[in-house]
């Protein structure tokens, strides 16, 4: 009896917490189909906010900026960061510590401080282009994440392979391409994915670092500051469905594998 009550209590608690996390998002999604502009009042099903969204050139431009900055900054950060990690790995202790500590700054720094420091730097350098500013900022906060995903892989791999390749007549570049890079590929890939998602999601650094150009986050902030807009609801709904589908695809595979393993274990016990 007590056990049943405890079980009921447990499940209720988890359900309430999931409700707390998801209800706001679901409400947002439902009301993105509302005909009326006010949220509290359901006047009928309509797709007009989605149509307005697709017709809105500003949103589409912002989406373009977000995606292109994410791709370019992730690629550049991955190349620079991987090379940097390989170099750092063979540095002497003291220099290595200095470089690693400075590299950790963007990860430790509050985004706000990072953003402001970029704003001052770009103003003093007289760098005008908003897109280039955003790109430089994103590359900079991405590189450390690449470096610190690649470094552990380098520690696991053997130094002698590179030396051996050189002894056998490889140039440093060939040795790098054929021997080192394949060995540390998992680290490079996770660094790239991390960079891409961080850039996609960034608001604070972009907000301070650029001017005259909007990514999706900046656009959302500038609209939401003025109050509620059904177009933002529609946008949230699309983004949320995209995110959840992606994550479920990635995670379901591993969950299914776990299920299989559990079944196997049960069979073995029986």
């Amino acid at each position, binding site marked *: 009896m007590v056990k049943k009550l405890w079980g009921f209590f*447990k499940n209720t*608690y*988890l359900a309430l*917490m*999931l409700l*707390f*996390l*998801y209800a*706001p998002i679901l*409400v*947002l999604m439902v*009301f993105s189909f509302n005909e009326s502009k*006010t*949220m509290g*009042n359901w006047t009928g099903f309509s797709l007009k906010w989605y149509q307005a969204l697709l017709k809105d050139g500003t949103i589409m431009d912002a989406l373009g900026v977000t995606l292109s900055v994410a791709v370019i900054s992730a690629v550049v950060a991955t190349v620079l960061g991987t*090379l*940097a990690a*390989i*170099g*750092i790995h063979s540095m002497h202790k003291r220099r290595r510590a200095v470089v690693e500590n*400075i*590299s950790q*700054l*963007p990860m*430790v*720094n*509050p985004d*706000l*401080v990072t953003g*402001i*420091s970029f704003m*001052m*730097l770009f103003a*003093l350098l007289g760098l005008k282009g908003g897109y280039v500013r955003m790109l*430089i900022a994103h590359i*900079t906060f991405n*590189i450390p994440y690449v*470096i610190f995903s690649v470094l552990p892989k380098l520690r696991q791999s053997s130094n002698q392979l590179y030396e051996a390749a050189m002894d056998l007549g490889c140039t*440093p570049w060939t040795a790098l391409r054929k021997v080192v890079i394949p060995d540390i590929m998992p680290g490079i890939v996770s660094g790239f994915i991390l960079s891409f*998602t961080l850039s996609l*999601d960034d*608001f604070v650094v972009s907000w*301070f670092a650029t001017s005259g150009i909007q990514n*999706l*986050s900046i656009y*959302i*902030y500038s609209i*939401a500051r003025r109050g*509620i807009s059904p177009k*933002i*609801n529609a946008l*949230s709904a699309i*983004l949320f469905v995209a*995110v*959840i589908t992606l994550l*479920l695809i990635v*995670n379901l595979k*591993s*969950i299914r594998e*776990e299920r299989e393993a559990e079944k196997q274990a049960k069979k073995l016990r029986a």
Partner: protein
Amino acid sequence: MKRTVFAYPYIVWMLIFILAPMLLIVWYAFSKGGSFTLGNLITAFSDPVYMRVLLRSVWIALKATAICLLLGYPIAYLLSAMKKSTASLLYVLFIVPMWMNFLLRTYAWQVLLDKSGILNTLLAFLHLPAQNMLYTESAIMLGTVYNFLPFMILPIYTVLIKLDASLVEAAHDLGANGIITFFKVILPQSIPGIISGITMVFIPAITTFAISRLLGGGKFMLYGDLIENQFITLGKDAWPVGSALSFILLVLVLASMAVMRQAERNAGEEGGILW
């Protein structure tokens, strides 16, 4: 050719775009007309408005962190005690909102709490008077908790599933009941997770600025808003004081990280004795 050469392009990048901007903040925070001064820092500390905002930010961040811990620990604990496949699925569900843009998560509450919003419509339906929920300090708190709760669940769950089940069994065999086992075995073992959870919630909570603007309507400035205001609205003349404020925020963040790291070390050393 030595392999260190591969790092050179990055080192140039690092000096220009990581080190130089940080030095700029320090430079502006501590100089006036080219000479060293503590004046900006003194202004940042002595202005009563700035001080009130700082205290409010710390207070809200502390409260939000405490609430996240109280709500999040049971979630992580219950999940860790479940069958593994169910737990993984639920865990993903709890973490997914983290991947949603935080502005949209905040905006969702703006929609719910609005004067003519859904919660007030619900209240009217129950014949209850409408409440002013949006643009209050509680709304900021709610938004902060909502945004950062997954960051508390994540590290605690990670620690709890790695916990050695035989320890719990041993405690039961030695006659401890569920409650004693929890407080003497499970909780002390999960302290590293709790500490990283606190760090992961407290630090973003204290440096946030958009949440307070969207849910507080600009009426309840937090330290982040103050800094934003210095740089965006007031322009270049406000850089010295703005830099001083940023410097204070940075020191606050680094200090709390140092405290957490120390706490983690202590927990590692005397985990058993402490409890």
